């Protein structure tokens, strides 16, 4: 199969749109779960208000905003990891072992 390919012929693209969409969806979802856990663990250990300065108590109202932003930052970075993983798995050219 692959051996008969002409030298200038591009290898057949094995990724289709549906696979990419599914990979995107799965990455979005798994990174969401990871971001939830990360947000809970990080903000249970660190009070964002005491991290910035010693000006305590007056910033209580800021916490929900910091938690929210923190969650989306975590989601963004875990999504990058999950999406790259999904992409590398999807776009992998099948090796001889996986050929039928």
């Amino acid at each position, binding site marked *: *199969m692959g051996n008969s390919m002409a030298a200038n012929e591009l290898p*057949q693209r*094995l990724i*289709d749109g*549906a*696979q990419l969409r*599914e990979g995107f*969806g*799965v990455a979005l*979802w*798994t990174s969401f779960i990871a971001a939830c856990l990360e947000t*809970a*663990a990080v*903000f*249970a*250990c660190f*009070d964002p208000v*005491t991290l910035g300065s*010693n000006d*305590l*108590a007056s910033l*209580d*109202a800021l*916490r*929900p*905003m910091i*938690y*929210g932003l923190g969650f989306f930052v975590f989601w963004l970075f875990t999504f990058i990891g999950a999406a790259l993983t999904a992409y590398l798995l999807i776009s992998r050219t*099948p090796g001889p072992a996986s050929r*039928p």
Partner: protein
Amino acid sequence: MNTEGAAVEVLYAAHEKVYAREVSGRFSTLRSLSVTVLLGVFYGLPWLHWNGRQAVLFDLPARKFFIFGLTLFPQDFYLLTWLLIMAALSLFFFTALAGRLWCGYACPQTVWTEAFVWMERLTEGNRSQQMKLDRAPWTARKVLRKSGKQILWVTFALFTGLTFVGFFSPIDGLAGKAFTATLSGWEAFWVLFYAFATYGNAGFMREQVCKYMCPYARFQSAMFDRNTLVISYDGARGEPRGARGRNAVRAAGQGDCIDCTLCVQACPTGIDIRKGLQYECIACAACIDACDAVMDKVGSPRGLVRYSTQAEIDGVPTRLLRPRIIIYAVGLSLLMAGFVYAVVHRAPFDLDVLRDRNALYRELDDGRIENVYTVRIINKDQHAHQFRLSTLNLANAVVDSDSPVQSVAAEDVNSVVVRVRIPGGQEHGGRNFLVVAQPLDLPDVSVTSRARFFAEP
């Protein structure tokens, strides 16, 4: 190459909407009951009051979780982790014992999908009416029914989002603000976010969440064995299947299955249980109810599709007590006992000492060395207490703060700036010591926290 192309096409077949047929029967009643109770708890809990405050409130701005009489602080986070481990182990235990009970009766995905499907039936009618409506051209009647469904769905989703945020921000005020459209930016955002997730998951994604997104669906088979309770079709009794009329004499050798396909039509994930156990099966038992009703009509005994074990289908006795069941049960019991012990014997006070980050140490005019700390006294008790602060393992230390005694209200935290002074020349470099908070009314209880004192090298 062509074979690979074909395989890809089969794996990624275009999704077709599943029109699950409504069924009634024992398990459908049980599921309705479970859905009602769980949704009742979710929507009702934030409105309950306890000791003058919301009974269950995860107060994120104040970093306090109120759960009836229990107040949890960030220091108690390990309890939450513990609880999650217990939840995971319970899931393993019940899966090994009785299969996917969680999926069929308790998973939020199932529960909210049931509610959304109910609203769909209310506006668009039963399975065949829905299919007909979807095929029909856009008439006024179709627009009316479809928009009626959307209005119900969106309202319910928004109410769900509001309730969800009500677990984090007092719901009394929240509901008022929602009706006057004066929610704060973040509150409004999370209400919409959760409403959108509910609408998407329960209205559109449905069984696809279980098939493509749920990790549990993929690994639950690892907990299964031949003695696990699963929903199965009794092939020995049912085959060879074939249609036959009411009270008609069946052909010689014909099985009990009349191939009415009602079990397939009732399946919310669109599978045929007669093909054997499949990972898409969420064990909702709709096919059992559907088949039992048919068996009653044709005069055959119930249970052609039933809760059973692989062992029973194979004619071998089912063993309830297997090593994995015992291991899960013992592990779960130990964890539960430990959890109860940890909650009951939780220290009523906690202490956090943060060094002032601006200066390592300061030399006073009289030659003494001063270090500044922020001491957070956490009072988890239901009563207010007064504390006196002192030090241990630091000779000649004098503790100075704005007031000699620190008052901390019930279930509250008080941050105090504390200056610790020692005579000059006594210490060099750093030294670890303990800060002690002593409640005045409880002489035999005190709480300590480690800190570090710095002097000139």
